């Protein structure tokens, strides 16, 4: 992947944005735009795209036949549904992230957030409450914050808390649990707690070279419009591709995995918590809808349901794919298991106190 660009013209267009973490190895700089050897192939991509579309239109009949099996239909429906549902929120997040990258000066965040990272983490975590959307919106926004020089620990706290504690999600939780209003409070407290602990943990243990500096052209020297739309295009193409991977995984689980094993898992209280935490990761449901699914898992304890609600918005297959795309695979491989473990611990702790 990491091959230095030979073309001298590319060199100055890849300076990382001011204030963003500097890459340790300069070789990573040219990562995004491909190397010389597949440059040739890439120039043919419109042709490839046209051929692909033509071929598929011509083969419509046989393809439809193969796809008419009930498993395939159900898979496709869930696949399309996850994407149709997530794309508007992704676009919202991408617009916001482009606006942050182009119109908000880096100095704004330096003034808005406390200087000491220890304090910046909870402030950023609480700020997550104002992003009205689900997890698809928070990944590009967190990426833009890092590029804008916000300390990664604070940006990560925001990334984890935003999809779980915003008013839309909390209202949905209240509607889904009419008999247990304490569930709303537990979700808010548990999610914020885990987000802050993860931020502080990153502050203590995290290393900058785990976090791939988000590569993208710098926008100085371009008009604001060009920079804004360039950022929108880049983020949609990038995060969108990873969203597709996540949607495929979620659709496979929904269409293929048997639902009856859940009944066995519900019998043991500890297994139940773990089972719902894993289910939250696999199902990758939008955080605005997960409360309703949790409410329907009637065999499970409230704490197990809380684990489902705390884990889901922080880490699931779709999010993992998107985080790997935005912050790098090395980051996602370390960050995801830590988030998963801490989210379960946080949910159990909050559940023990509040539920």
């Amino acid at each position, binding site marked *: 992947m990491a091959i230095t660009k030979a073309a001298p013209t590319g060199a100055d*267009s890849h300076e990382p944005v001011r204030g963003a973490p500097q890459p340790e190895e300069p070789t990573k700089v040219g990562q995004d*735009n491909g190397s010389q050897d597949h440059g040739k192939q890439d120039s043919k*991509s*419109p042709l490839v795209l046209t051929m692909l579309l033509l071929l598929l239109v011509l083969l419509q009949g046989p393809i439809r036949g193969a796809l008419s099996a009930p498993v395939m239909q159900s898979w496709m429906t869930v696949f399309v549904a996850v994407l149709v549902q997530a794309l*508007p929120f992704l676009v919202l997040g991408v617009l916001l992230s482009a606006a942050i990258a182009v119109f908000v000066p880096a100095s704004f965040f330096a003034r808005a957030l406390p200087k000491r990272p220890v304090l910046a983490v909870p402030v950023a975590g609480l700020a997550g409450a104002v992003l009205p959307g689900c997890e698809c919106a928070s990944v590009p926004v967190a990426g833009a914050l890092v590029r804008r020089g916000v300390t990664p620990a604070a940006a990560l706290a925001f990334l984890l808390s935003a999809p779980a504690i915003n008013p839309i999600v909390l209202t949905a939780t209240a509607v889904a649990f009419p008999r247990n209003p304490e569930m709303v409070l537990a979700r808010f407290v548990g999610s914020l707690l885990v987000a802050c602990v993860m931020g502080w943990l990153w502050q203590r243990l995290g290393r900058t070279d785990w976090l791939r500096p988000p590569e993208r052209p710098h926008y100085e020297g371009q008009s604001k419009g060009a920079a804004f739309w360039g950022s*929108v295009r880049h983020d949609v193409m990038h995060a969108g591709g990873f969203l597709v991977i996540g949607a495929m995984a979620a659709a496979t689980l929904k269409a293929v995995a048997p639902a009856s094993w*859940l009944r066995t898992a519900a019998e043991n209280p500890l297994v139940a918590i773990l089972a719902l935490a894993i289910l939250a990761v696999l199902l990758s449901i939008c955080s605005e809808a997960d409360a309703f699914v949790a409410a329907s898992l009637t065999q499970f304890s409230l704490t197990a349901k809380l684990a489902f609600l705390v884990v889901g918005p922080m880490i699931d297959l779709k999010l993992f794919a998107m985080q790997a*795309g935005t912050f790098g695979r090395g980051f996602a491989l370390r960050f995801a298991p830590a988030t998963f473990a801490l989210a379960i611990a946080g949910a159990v702790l909050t559940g023990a106190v509040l539920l």
Partner: protein
Amino acid sequence: MNRQAQAAVLFLTGAALLHAGFTNLYLRYVKAGLQPLLLLSGGVLIAAALATVWYEWRGRRENRGDGHGHDHGDGHVHREPRVSWLLVLPLLALILVAPPALGSYSAMRTGTALQQPYGYNRLPASGPLDLTVVDYASRAVYDHGRSIDGRQIKVTGFVALDRSGSPYLVRMALNCCAADAQPVKIALTGTIPPVLQPDKWLQVSGTYTAKQTKDPVNNGPIPYFRVTAATPVPTPKDPYDESWNN
């Protein structure tokens, strides 16, 4: 993927979202309330595609005009990774296949999601009742049929057959998108049509019966319905029950 191809994918994705949002196609996949956001995001994607083409064209012209001062707009920089190609898949699925709303296959794999409602709407005092699957099932199970006993009732849903071939009338209830859709089931008894096709929509008329069974998947309650007549009906505009969203 170079800029032209990216612009094409963005444009087609935006157009597919607009198409789904302006027709009733989107109701197969997501809740009705998402329509404005869907149309808005379709518009933004198309705008991003047009902006890409515009800046690409202007960049080229500038490059030709003033020698080679700027490197932006030159198609060889800022290429997106190969994962972007995956965006073609949902496009094809939505444009070429447009898969149907979830039906009997998913319904029989998932346990009934019937839950005790906050309360019941008042029913007309006389005449036949037109109830949804969810409404009938919750009145039958949690109200013990008090408000519907002895009345003529009509219910609409799609047919699903379990392994032994017993028929159910099902409606999927949805909160956000089809990934979280869950079935609510009614078991049918009485004069059932001899041939029942799974996934075909039926309007059954008949009466309440106190008989109940358990869903083998999650032990949830499934009430019975005594059928006197059944007529095939077209798939409703919104195939899902969205009453839980209000």
